[in-house]
């Protein structure tokens, strides 16, 4: 009786678990096809000049990427539709498994465009592998990016520093400061000055200090790397550089960066090693030759007695031949 009751309870528990799982799956699959979004939901530029070229990347995002789903793009901007190109086209498949899909909106302003504010929007629809099944209405999700483009005659200079690095240098070489700069204006621009303080590795002794003013420019609406150099006389070792970037005479922040001074020729050797894998191969050959040599010596030592006998026999036969000749 007790055994039967136990069996009933255990089967009930198993059944309950299975049913819960099944209905959970069913509810989940019926509920929705996963979220769909856009970030950022706008394409904005308030400093375009006639003839300008501008690109902005937006991301289509989803939490449960549907295999085989596609994007359909609709541009609703009557005045400026011809200016706009989507890098992936107006219909494209979502890459399998991708939660973030970058889409670049390319804007080419015609040279004869009148100054003014131009608006519109771009809608991205996520089309599932099968739009409708059975009776009823399928719901598909879309997201909208607003277009706000201002064409102006006014020059506008501004930039963002997206990253700074200081390269490892060889002793005697100048210090190279590399800045990744995004020009957000419509004229070529860049930092007018970079101030560099160099400290020892313990960061308690200021060793050198200077301004770099010859940095170059970044073209409008582009992100480029620019480089400045500073003469230094540092011993081999590790150092800190505090780099301040100046925008219109004001510091936009201090970046503390670690760098190395290495012996002369080190970087060239590394570069050669990267550029010429043959050098590595030649080293590999040396290793292989050495390995072969070791193996041969090993074999000789193992079969020493046989070899010795062989050589002794050889000598005896030569002596016999000589005797016969005599």
């Amino acid at each position: 009786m007790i055994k039967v009751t136990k069996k009933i309870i255990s089967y009930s528990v198993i059944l309950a678990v299975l049913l819960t799982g099944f209905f959970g799956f069913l509810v989940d699959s019926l509920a929705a096809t996963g979220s769909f979004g856009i970030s950022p939901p706008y394409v904005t530029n308030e400093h375009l000049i006639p003839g300008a070229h501008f690109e902005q990347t937006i991301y289509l995002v989803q939490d449960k990427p549907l295999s085989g789903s596609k994007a359909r793009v609709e541009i609703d901007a009557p005045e400026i539709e011809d200016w706009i190109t989507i890098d992936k086209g107006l219909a494209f498949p979502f890459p399998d498994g991708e939660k973030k899909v970058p889409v670049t909106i390319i804007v080419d302003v015609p040279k004869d465009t009148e100054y003014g504010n131009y608006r519109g929007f771009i809608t991205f629809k996520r089309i599932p592998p099968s739009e409708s099944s059975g009776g009823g209405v399928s719901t598909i999700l879309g997201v909208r990016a607003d277009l706000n483009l201002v064409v102006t005659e006014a020059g506008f200079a501004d930039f963002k520093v997206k990253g700074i690095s200081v390269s490892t240098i060889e002793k005697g070489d100048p210090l190279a400061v590399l800045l990744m700069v995004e020009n957000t204006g419509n004229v070529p621009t860049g930092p007018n000055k970079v101030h560099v303080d160099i400290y020892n590795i313990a960061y308690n002794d200021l060793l050198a200090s200077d301004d770099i003013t010859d940095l170059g420019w970044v073209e409008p609406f582009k992100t480029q790397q620019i480089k400045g150099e500073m003469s230094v006389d540092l011993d081999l070792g590790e150092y800190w550089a505090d780099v301040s970037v100046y925008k219109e005479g004001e510091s936009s922040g201090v970046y503390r960066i670690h760098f190395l001074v290495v012996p002369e020729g080190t970087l060239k050797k590394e570069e050669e090693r990267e550029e010429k894998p043959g050098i590595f191969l030649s080293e590999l050959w040396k290793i292989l030759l050495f390995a072969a040599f070791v193996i041969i010596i090993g074999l000789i030592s193992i079969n020493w007695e046989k070899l010795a006998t062989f050589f002794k026999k050889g000598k005896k036969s030569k002596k016999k031949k000589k005797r016969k000749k005599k």
Partner: protein
Amino acid sequence: MRSKIEKTVPLLALSLILLIMSMGLAVVIEEIMAADIQSQVSVGNAAPTVATVTLNSGDAITLVANGTTTVLGTTTITDSNGWVDISHATATLFQNGNSSSCSTGVGGAGRGAWCYWMASSSCTLGATTTSSRIVSCSAFVWFIGEPTTGTSTITGDWQMDITAYDGAASTSYASSGANSVECNVLYALNASSSIDYGSVAPGATSSEQTTKITNTGNWQIDNSLSGVDMDDGSVHTIPVGQQKYSSSSDMGDWVGTALTTSAAAYDLELPRPTATTSNSTDNLYWMIKIPDGQYAATYTGTNTLTARDAL
């Protein structure tokens, strides 16, 4: 030949041992003969130094609808006692316009809208030089992360502070500071995948059907709605305008806004979610009226719900 080698090897080995012993003896004698001056130095502990943090490669943070996205901060830690003295690192990623302090546990154990604390297990120590180590800390930021661009009215940026610890538990920290980045606005939604009106007679209206719409982004949104004529896969269609929708559940006998083929804005008011299980939802109600004399068949169609800026 063999016997010669056999005799020579022990002699060579003995010579080598004697040579090593002589060298060792020479070193000992040199020490004894040297001036009787003892030098002693105690090397103290130096706290580690941390470079400016590079956050998300300098790019704005883009979140994933209804999920998390990995945000990486990297920096260099140095220690004058050598890289081996660098033991571990912890970090915080936070929206710096918020007046509260972001520290251990704040933000619901890393699930907040503005503050993420990373234990040493989230910070990986990597490549070394004599005195430095690279460290990378990663946070999994939820879709509710506060946006700082575009239509957002939230001030500030996102920054990461990385704290380095050495063997003597001396600490030092650096933030992304000037490398702080923005967090993009995310418009995102989720909705029921279909509407089933069931079997409806010509001239009659269906019962109300419900579509639950959830805001799975980080800012308030509204919707645009559009659709296409329903068809039976043959020549028969039901005009798109026969479907009506409303945010009110009381559609009576087909009261609401008629669906159109071009997208029409509708004020649903889905506010910015503040919880990782989105707490911003709204229902949209649907009804269909079948025209008199409609051919009997099963009709299908597609309606589009588009997330857009709040009206």
